[in-house]
């Protein structure tokens, strides 16, 4: 018997769970992020972000989210957080800064909520 594993009527932490539907939606963004595991591609991205996004066939809406460094918007559009970390490297936005943005806080305000902010 198949036991349902998820209850979509009860969101997890007011956030989306990365599943096949989201993965399909965000496929091109995630594919672009995945390519950034190659140092030559990281250099190409930094050299010309617009051309790089074009190369991976991002839609105008997706490009706009990347330009705005809107990580909440990207997650909602199907980007996976672990792939966004790679985009964070080339755009200078580390995980905790992304997290502060998701929480709607400044980086400093977010750090102040942690048990030991020395462990960054």
């Amino acid at each position, binding site marked *: 018997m198949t036991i349902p*594993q998820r209850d979509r009527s009860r969101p*997890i932490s007011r956030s989306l769970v*990365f599943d096949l539907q989201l993965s399909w939606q965000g496929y091109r963004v995630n594919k672009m992020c995945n390519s950034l*595991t190659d*140092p030559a591609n990281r250099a190409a991205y930094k050299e010309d972000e617009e051309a790089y996004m074009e190369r991976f066939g991002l839609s105008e809406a997706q490009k706009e989210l990347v330009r705005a460094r809107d990580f909440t918007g990207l997650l909602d559009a199907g980007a996976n957080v672990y792939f966004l970390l790679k985009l964070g490297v080339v755009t200078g936005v580390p*995980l905790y800064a992304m997290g502060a943005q998701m929480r709607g806080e400044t980086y400093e305000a977010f750090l102040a909520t942690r048990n030991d902010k020395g462990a960054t």
Partner: protein
Amino acid sequence: MGRIIAGIGTSHVPSIGGAYDRGKQATPAWRPLFDAYVPVRQWLAELKPDVAIMVYNDHGADFFFDKYPTFAVGAADGYAIADEGFGTRPLPPIHGHLEFSQHLCESLVYNEFDLTVCQEMRVEHGFLVPMHLCFEHTPDWTVAAVPFAVNVLQHPLPTARRCYKLGQAIRQAVEAYPKDLRVVILGTGGMSHQLTGPEFGKMDERWDQDFLDRIENDPESLCDLTHQTLMERYGAEGIELIMWLVMRGAMSSQARRVHRNYYAPMTTGMGLITLEEPA
């Protein structure tokens, strides 16, 4: 014949790798984590395992969603260090155990686990952080390894029960290996963390401690938890804890706990438990 001698549950948080590479092990913020692994390395050095089966997940370093395996196992004589997007970490390449890996794949597939077998794999923090926390590697690794990747990223994921059964099948495979081989199995990931949305950084020490209790004394009670329940307790990313059940399934009910630690400085509950089989 082969024998499982020990099991370890441990977090694999990438910032641990960063702190390690920057030599921050002795800073006040990191000591409570790194100090806990000193006796673990000593214990493992005395146990002298030949092979470590590392149950982990890739975070987009080697696998992409074009083809995404539920269970992927390395069957090679070595594994390169992956570039996750910030360069390659200064660690020696991983030694594989080709013959044992091939045996493990054959045994698991005939035991009805339909694996993706990988003759090339690059390993990243999910694998590497537990490796360098637990095993000496200067100038070289003191143990061979089998990377065992589980999909905990793109739902649908394997169920908790499936992970536990996989561990039981791994134990059978190890015991059917015809040569003397001492095997340690590591289940990695977690503990509680939520890395998306307005509750970014949410952790729950109470549930993490409960998981540590249960993985030691009553793993069966974790096997019927749905992904929904697991994510409500541990966060969307905390679902990685199902990989600890693979480790626990490979251990006997006689295994006794040796080490336990918990530390949650930033955004992830960092847990550790070690179990040893009777000699």
